[in-house]
């Protein structure tokens, strides 16, 4: 019997077809992977199933019965629960309060005790241990995710949609999540596991359906496939999964941080005496769960945040209190972690974005030299394979991967010596990731010094020559890449060993 059947689902947003006649059958009690690159239409499809969007055409069958799902409330009534990528919890409330929020036990007064016992009972039944009276603000990300799952279970969900559930977890937490998923399957729940990675669905799913560019590619049984086939289905061509890395040739130190401290936006200490040395010709990876000071470290080096203590040297010059402009001229480039908020100006054209920070160099007299700006843009568009209708296209209409290429092209074109790359491939599809990784390695081999900050452990391990792990604002360990295993990194990231 099938728990969910989607038949010929089509959804358009303006001119783009997000879902093009997609049909998928999900069996009752199975863990079903939904795989595809960013923009393949996975989330749109699941939002239709959850009633957040309505399909332009097509039908939905729940437990073999045709069902109209007009809003999330109706989806919940059908037994569907969705755990979003970004959790939707109230930090000041306790775990139990969050779980029962909106469907509290009946009565005029809120029966906290009853809520607690209900939640306890629920968490025992499915083996999802949580402390119901702990406030969410004090819970870890892994626990928050459990709370989200419990929230769905409390609303009697039989079909659980997990949207990229591992994106925010360290490897050990992923293992815990997989245990939970197996337990849920044991008790007869159906689970839809959305992912754009290859290994995770292989490890947990019974069957995997692949989407590409809004179309359904096929459903495969996990046991009868491998990551190469999945990658081919996802991208539509052969993909080189293993990077070819030439041996490292470490040269002179380029960037030296000496006991650097800084505050975060809430004026609390975010960096605690961070020290490291980055050499020419190497990639130093900064690993860590997000929010452990990596963003602040990048801001401090790139002159976007005040240094509270310590010293930063760039080619033995003190740059501790330099502004971004000065740093650019000295040869620093920065791929920011949030390309939409910081990397580009969405309403500018591609050509305008490609001169950001160099606008004064593109003048003829007092006016901007339009011809040279467009020529410059066309050169970078060709060199970096940016897919855009023209240099005068408004930048925000480009896909995520092409936007990132705009950022990379602009930053690399200034002939920098020092590269600060923060989450350079986050949210990009396999093809774009391949490209950007290749570019970073190219610069490393040409003698560039690269600081790679990433929450993606696979990326850190694939690219880095050395790995430093950040936990709670400090670098807790530094290893040569060949000595690092996923397990040791995971434990260091979680702050378990020091």
């Amino acid at each position, binding site marked *: 019997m099938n728990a969910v059947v989607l038949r010929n689902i089509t959804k358009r947003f303006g001119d783009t077809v997000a879902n093009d006649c997609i049909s998928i059958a999900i069996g009752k009690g199975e863990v079903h992977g939904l795989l595809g690159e960013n923009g393949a239409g996975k989330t749109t499809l699941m939002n239709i199933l959850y009633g957040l969007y309505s399909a332009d055409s097509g039908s939905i069958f729940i437990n073999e019965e045709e069902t109209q799902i007009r809003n999330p409330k109706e989806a919940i009534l059908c037994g569907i629960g969705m755990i979003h990528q970004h959790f939707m919890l109230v930090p000041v409330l306790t775990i139990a309060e969050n779980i029962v929020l909106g469907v509290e036990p009946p009565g005029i007064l809120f029966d906290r005790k009853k809520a607690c016992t209900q939640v306890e009972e629920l968490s025992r039944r499915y083996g999802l241990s949580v402390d119901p009276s702990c406030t969410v603000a004090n819970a870890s990300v892994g626990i928050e995710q459990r709370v989200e799952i419990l929230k769905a279970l409390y609303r009697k969900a039989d079909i659980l949609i997990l949207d990229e559930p591992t994106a925010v977890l360290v490897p050990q937490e992923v293992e815990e999540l997989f245990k939970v998923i197996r337990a849920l399957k044991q008790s007869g729940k159906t689970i839809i596991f959305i992912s754009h990675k290859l290994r995770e669905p292989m490890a947990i799913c019974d069957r995997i359906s692949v989407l590409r560019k809004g179309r359904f590619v096929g459903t495969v049984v996990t046991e009868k496939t491998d990551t190469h086939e999945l990658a081919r289905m996802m991208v539509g061509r052969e993909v080189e999964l293993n990077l070819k890395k030439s041996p490292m040739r470490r040269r002179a130190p380029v960037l030296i941080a000496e006991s650097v401290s800084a505050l975060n936006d809430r004026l609390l200490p975010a960096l605690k005496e961070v020290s490291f040395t980055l050499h020419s010709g190497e990639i130093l990876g900064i690993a860590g769960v997000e929010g452990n000071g990596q963003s602040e470290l990048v801001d401090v080096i790139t002159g976007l945040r005040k240094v509270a203590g310590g010293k930063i040297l760039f080619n033995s010059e003190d740059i501790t209190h330099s502004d*971004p402009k000065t740093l650019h001229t000295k040869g620093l480039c920065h791929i920011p972690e949030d390309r939409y908020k910081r990397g580009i*100006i969405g*309403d500018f054209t591609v050509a305008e974005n490609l001169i950001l920070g160099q606008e004064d160099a593109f003048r003829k007299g007092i006016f901007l030299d339009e011809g040279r700006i467009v020529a410059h843009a066309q050169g970078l568009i060709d060199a970096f394979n940016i897919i855009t209708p023209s240099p005068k296209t408004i930048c925000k209409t480009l896909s995520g991967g092409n936007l990132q290429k705009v950022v990379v092209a602009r930053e690399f074109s200034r002939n920098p010596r020092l590269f600060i790359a923060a989450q350079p491939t986050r949210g990009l599809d396999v093809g774009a990731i391949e490209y950007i990784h290749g570019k970073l390695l190219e610069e490393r081999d040409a003698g560039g010094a690269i600081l790679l900050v990433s929450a993606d452990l696979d990326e850190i391990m694939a690219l880095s020559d050395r790995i430093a792990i950040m936990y709670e604002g400090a670098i807790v360990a530094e290893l040569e890449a060949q000595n690092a295993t996923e397990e040791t990194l995971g434990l260091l990231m979680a702050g378990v060993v020091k």
Partner: protein
Amino acid sequence: MRKIVSDLLYSFFAILLALLLGALLIEATGYSSLSAYAALFRGAFGDSYAIAQTLAKASPLIFTGLCVAFAFRCGLFNIGGEGQLVVGGLAAALTGIYISAPIFIHIPLAILAGMAAGGMWALIPGWLKARFGAHEVITTIMMNYVGILLCSYLVNYPFKAPGWVAQTVFIKESATLPKLIPKTQLSAALLLALLFSFLTYLFLWKTSWGYKIRAVGLNPTSAEYGGINPARVMILSMAISGMLAGLGGVGEVLGVHKRFIDGFSPGYGFDGIAVAVLGRNHPAGAILGALLFGALRAGGMAMDRVTDVPADLVFVIQALVILFVSAPEMFRIIGRLKK
């Protein structure tokens, strides 16, 4: 290009809709909408005098529209155009009265004095924003009161001309902007307004300073990341925005009244906000918006003279135009909320 055409169409339908609704209102209050509109149209475009009146009323509105649009391109809301216009007007008047120079020096000098005063008046809120994060909406509104009342004091006491009215004496002939059509209010201020619209366009879209200003307006975080100093750019933008408003006062003083009269502005600075909204914060749009409002003003005064319909109704129509022009944006926002 397609967007410009659709924007123009939107604005056109908004005006049509506003006039229709205005007609209903006129009928509801017991007057004839047809004769009212006929009077309004004749007063705005009926003969060369009417057209001159429309253009004369549009001139200061072009400047204040540019003022608001310029600041907006840097992400700032300059609500202080009124105060900047008034202090600009007084500075120009005093230069016109107390300095003697040949005409080709005197006029530019008076213009520069007006720009400097208006610019200074906006620079203060700009600096307060950059230094302390004080919101420019609040500070520019406050500066309106300070500016208007300060000028009022100055022409009531130190610079008051003999007589009952709170005004200065006439400016010297050498500081007077020539009339374009004799016996009308239309002066060379209109040419000045068109010139500065073009300069504003060049500055914002063709220079690297304009690039920086627009970058800060669209995304200050990205601008800062790119090495632009947003605080400095904001201060500069406010100052230029204030200069444009100040020029509005200059045109009125040197071209129309030939002296500074207390309360000479019937709210040009505030109407500038509407002009900028109507013109989508573009200099060319500001010209079109100012022409519409100038026509409504000139026509409204004529309508008031020859029919029983009160001129206040013109303000209702103005308000309706603004409402309908901003409506597509409103619908878009509501649409987004629903999703």
